[in-house]
């Protein structure tokens, strides 16, 4: 400190601090007094804040503050406010039959959004993001092939009651026999049935094996899957003539399925989610691309006169 050379700067009349770097000196200009006041004001502000808001860290939590503010409280308030904001829409969806939703595009849109949110919480674990399904395990919800039906009311029923819930009467249920494991068909017969199934799905050309398989199919499979393998939605029996195979359509996969079927299950959500959420979930699944119009009456008409 001894080498500090303070001096009065000529141009300003202010003392220098005394440092000097290559001829550059620093003026010891006094701070403006209002700046000091703002410092005091911030101290007062700080004290008031400490009293009003959570501030001092204690063993379990910070001091509560006189205002009782907390970020969790804020979140609860915002969630409550948002629930209030959504209430009219949710109530309107609740009051509308699911088959009437498509006629009200705004309500349908809201239901799809709400259903998407619920889907991401409850359904993606098996059906995958966006309802893509998981190969050989869980069906895709986005294609145009449905085991139990793809119109709004049917989807809602399936979501509500689940599939193959042993303790629930209204659940979707059916049981494909384990033809191989239980010795109903022997290995050669299963091979013939596989040939036939691959023939009707146009993966193989007709052969002696498929001709033998046709007879076996008529005796053992047609009761559920239909005479031509067109499937049966009453029992969730998949269509065997199309390009979509939940558990695989190659010889090995088909052999494994016929030997020991999976008979997949889905929880029933009626007991876990409220009806509005289920309705919205159904609307979302319906919107994924495979949704079917409630075609039942039209289909009957078409069947009667043979016209499309």
């Amino acid at each position, binding site marked *: *400190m*001894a080498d*500090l*050379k*303070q*001096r*009065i700067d000529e*141009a300003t009349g202010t*003392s220098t601090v*005394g440092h000097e770097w290559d001829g550059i000196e620093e003026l*010891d200009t*006094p*701070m*403006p*007094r*209002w*700046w*000091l006041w703002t410092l005091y004001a911030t101290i007062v502000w700080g004290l008031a804040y400490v009293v009003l808001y959570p501030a001092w860290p204690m063993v379990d939590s910070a001091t509560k503050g006189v205002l009782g503010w907390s970020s969790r409280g804020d979140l609860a308030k915002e969630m409550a406010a948002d629930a209030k904001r959504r209430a009219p829409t949710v109530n309107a969806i609740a009051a509308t039959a699911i088959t009437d939703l498509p006629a009200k*595009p705004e309500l349908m849109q809201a239901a799809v959004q709400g259903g998407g949110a619920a889907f991401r919480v409850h359904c993606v674990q098996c059906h*995958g*993001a*966006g*309802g*893509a*399904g998981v190969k050989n395990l869980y069906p*895709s919800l*986005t*294609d*145009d*092939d449905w085991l139990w039906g793809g119109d709004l009311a049917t989807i809602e029923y399936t979501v509500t009651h689940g599939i193959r819930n042993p303790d629930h009467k209204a659940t979707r249920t059916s049981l494909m026999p384990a033809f191989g494991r239980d010795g109903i068909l022997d290995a050669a017969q299963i091979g013939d049935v596989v040939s036939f199934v691959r023939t009707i799905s146009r993966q193989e050309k007709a052969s002696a094996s498929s001709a033998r398989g046709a007879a076996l199919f008529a005796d053992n499979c047609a009761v559920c899957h239909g005479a031509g393998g067109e499937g049966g939605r009453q029992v969730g029996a998949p*269509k065997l003539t*199309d*390009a*979509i195979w939940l558990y695989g359509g190659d010889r090995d996969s088909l052999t494994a399925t016929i030997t020991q079927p999976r008979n997949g299950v889905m929880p029933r959500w009626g007991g876990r989610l409220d009806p509005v959420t289920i309705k919205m979930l159904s609307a979302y699944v319906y*919107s994924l*691309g*495979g*949704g079917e*119009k409630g075609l039942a009456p039209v289909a009957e008409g078409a069947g009667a006169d043979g016209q499309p």
Partner: protein
Amino acid sequence: MASPEDLSGQPAPLYEARKGVYPKAVNGPFRRFKWAIMAVTLAIYYGTPWIRWDRGPYAPDQAVLVDLANRRFYMFQIEIWPHEFYYVAGLLIMAGIGLFLVTSAVGRAWCGYACPQTVWTDLFQHVDRMVDGDRNAQVRLANGPWTAEKLAKRVVKYGIYLAIAFWTGGAWIMYFADAPTLTLDFWTGQAALVAYGTVAMLTATTFILGGFLREQVCVYMCPWPRIQTAMMDEKSLLVTYKDWRGEPRGSVKKGQAHPSAFGDCIDCNQCVAVCPTGIDIRQGPQIGCITCALCIDACDGVMAQVGRPRGLIDYCTLDDAATEKAGGTGRPIRKTLLRPRTLIYFGVWIAIGTAMLFSLGQRTRLDLAVQHERSPLYVQLSDGHIRNNYTLKLRNMETRPRRVAVSVSGLADAVLWTNAGSREKAGQRIELALPADSVTGVKLFIAAPGAGPARQDFTISTRGLDGDPRGDSDIIQFDRPEAGQ
């Protein structure tokens, strides 16, 4: 240890009270110029939100509106969407280069004439003179005891300060909502809390910064004077006391007695008296000088009275000062203003402005953004076709509802449909109705034969069906299962 006390004989203060500044009224060309600029800038600030501009039934009719809630920025003919924010960035760059241009040409002209702090301080100082009287009366009142008269004058003066401050704060929020509606809401207690908060905040800052802190803002708070110091050169105009002409100072009497011993400065202190920041320009260029040129007006007036030529204090560059000191004459003002540096700044400024105007004229008001849904990447359909899902964002940036068509090209035998239609009725294109001034999200399904490359680029495009056929297109992928899957 040496300390400042040893040097001056008394302790150096750590803090310093503000020295009162009581600028005297002055008249002259620069003062009149400042009045004019004040009138124009205040009129622009207070008046702009009230200008109406008809944009039809689907858009606000306020000429300048920053619609934060709906994320739109309206400026007369131009409507800016959030994704076009680079136009605002361009404007800011132009403002920056404009300041460079002005500073390199005429020094701190922004500080002296157009800065809001300067304009409002000027206005408040005028209020001071109206209520308290001119400089001497103000000083007397400030130093005098608290009489009833002083109290009354202070109440009136601060009342006027507050009124101006409130009007200033109130005008600000008008840029962010429909001005007449907001005014009505504001006075009936219907406006948003943020409106009241903003007005209160800006009223307080105007009251404090314009009424009390004034030149302290320029000297202590504002970074701009210091940045400008770096941007000026020896060819920038500065308010300069021509000491080679003025020194040594002496009264008129002394000057008449010894004409050769004294310069032109008669030491009348008028330049100091009129200075709104309270500096003495005769000490040379300094941070407190905002180059408002009121001292030029004051000095010119005095020189005229004593019969000496004007311009003892005048705008002058450092180069010219050196020339004049050596007995020469400075460059003409035209040459000072038009030199490579200012011309380059001006050229860049004009180029950015022209480019922005050109691109504003060229932009389409129908925009398409396509997102390929990734989960699932493709869907196997029962008849062997493959479906891909896309999310379309269609921006109709015109203030009228529109009908548009969406179609695909480069994907053989593709059909497209939305949730409103179905695959059975799907065709090569769909038609959509877009509400005015809005973004419409559409989930689009495209089905194509299963035979084809695993990943294929194709084009989705949209175009208007109602007069203006211009549109937009996007190249996107169509995915199929890899062989063997």
